[in-house]
């Protein structure tokens, strides 16, 4: 159960998210779309409390992940972030080997059994469709990989800590079309086991990969519905204008 209830977010004086209410269906892909600065990335980052890292951020309302409000007192943020994985816009592998990149999340969370680590690394790389390409070069630096491979490595890294939710912040915007297609294919595969939320600037991508789409404009959730409805028969004129490319 993933839900935002009357969510408001302020960057100091700037009201970045206004009264957002959204129910995310499990084991499906929800796309967050809207013009730059509309608050979609900010909204995505409330689900693993990544906004905490920015000084001056204030949050009102509730965000429910796995049946608890993650903004209530006493929440273990590190624990939360283990169950909510994140993939970033630019591939950002660490300056470590391919193996150690995927193992990192387990190591920082106190798993030291090398057998378990090894198995999980392999599983994660298989899940992210990278295993066949890297299985003979696990000790090589992650920077020896191409951009698309690096992004799939980052997905494997996120999967290795066994999250149930995967947040993706424009995961393909820095990639070439072929790598993008691979990532999209992967998202299709992953939604069988994970709840995925993806921010994208690419309308076609949202239409291709998502089951539900939320359209944001100036911090407000304008419309939320099944993707095919948003793209073919939206209720609001604003949504219609945006998805048909008349503004944004």
């Amino acid at each position, binding site marked *: 159960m993933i839900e935002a209830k009357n969510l408001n977010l302020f960057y100091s004086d700037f009201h970045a998210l206004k009264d957002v209410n959204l129910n995310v269906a499990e084991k499906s892909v929800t796309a967050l779309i809207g013009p730059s600065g509309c608050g979609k990335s900010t909204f995505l980052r409330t689900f*693993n409390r*990544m906004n905490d*890292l920015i*000084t001056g951020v204030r949050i009102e309302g509730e965000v429910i992940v796995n049946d608890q409000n993650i903004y209530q007192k006493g929440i273990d943020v*590190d*624990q939360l*972030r*283990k169950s*909510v*994985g*994140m993939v*970033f*816009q*630019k591939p*950002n592998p*660490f*300056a*470590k*080997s391919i193996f150690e990149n995927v193992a*990192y*999340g387990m*190591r*920082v*969370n106190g798993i030291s059994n090398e057998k378990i680590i090894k198995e999980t690394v392999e599983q994660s790389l298989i899940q992210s469709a990278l295993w066949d390409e890297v299985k003979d070069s696990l*000790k*090589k*630096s992650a*920077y*020896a990989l191409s951009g698309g491979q690096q992004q799939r490595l*980052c997905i494997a*890294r*996120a999967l290795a*800590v066994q999250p149930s939710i995967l947040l993706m912040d424009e995961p393909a915007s820095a990639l070439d079309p072929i790598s993008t297609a691979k990532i999209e294919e992967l998202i299709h595969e992953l939604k069988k086991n994970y709840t995925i939320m993806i921010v994208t600037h690419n309308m076609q991508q949202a239409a291709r990969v998502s089951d539900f789409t939320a359209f944001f404009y100036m911090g407000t959730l304008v419309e939320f519905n099944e993707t095919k409805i948003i793209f073919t028969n939206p209720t609001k004129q604003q949504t219609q204008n945006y998805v048909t490319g008349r503004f944004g």
Partner: protein
Amino acid sequence: MNHSTVKKITQGIAFNVFRTLSIILVAILFSILAFIVFRGAHTISWDFITQMPEEGMTKGGIFPAIVGTLSLVAGSMLIAFPLGVCSGIYINEYAPENAFKRFVKLMTNNLAGVPSIVFGLFGMSLFVNTLKFGDSIIAGSLTLGLLALPVIIRVTEEALKSIDKTYREASYALGATKLQTVRKVVLPMAMPNIITGLILSIGRVSGETAPILFTVAAYFLPKLPSSMFDQVMALPYHLYVLSTSGTNMEESRGMAYGTALVLIIIVLILNLTANLIRHFLMKKIKQK
């Protein structure tokens, strides 16, 4: 003349001005180096770098000064490097953005501009007199360490700042704590640049005379130190002595140039070593 011709001429002039200035700079550096090599090379022999000074420092070698300088460089870096890196980490990663942090940064910058003789006097009054270390390697190392500290702090801070926040976020997103993120992700990526700061500091520390003048340096001491509470001779001070207050300055002129050359070679070797370490770390990050 049309516009594009004017542009071309301006381009040409600018290029030549920059080139000439660079050539002049390199030429000056090379002539200094050539001068010292020319005057000092014939003094250098195996005995010169392995023997004690003799006959009022006009004969023999400079072995104790070499050992002295190496122990002071090692001592001061052992003190300043960990302390400076930790301070840099604190300032960039932990300290909240407020007036106190700005004050600390301002003071660090000011400290970097304090004349080295002031460090020497401070070291004498604190380490030599108040803490009663006497003229000793430990007092000299602490004083030189303080001198190097602001540079190492600033370099560390800049090196950490240059690591994009996306790597920190990726680490936090996996449930890592701040300490884990700094230690395992950010610091290894920043290390090559921090080593650059270390190289600069080694060069500075090994050549300084003023800070060791009242804290460690011996005018003439033809034996090796047995503990860190002993005095030592040091190359820059030995050079100073030979050229201003030796027993027979005409006689020891050649020795002075030889000492200068040895000092330059030592700094060069230390820099090359540090560069090698840096190169190795870079390679570890980029390749294997």
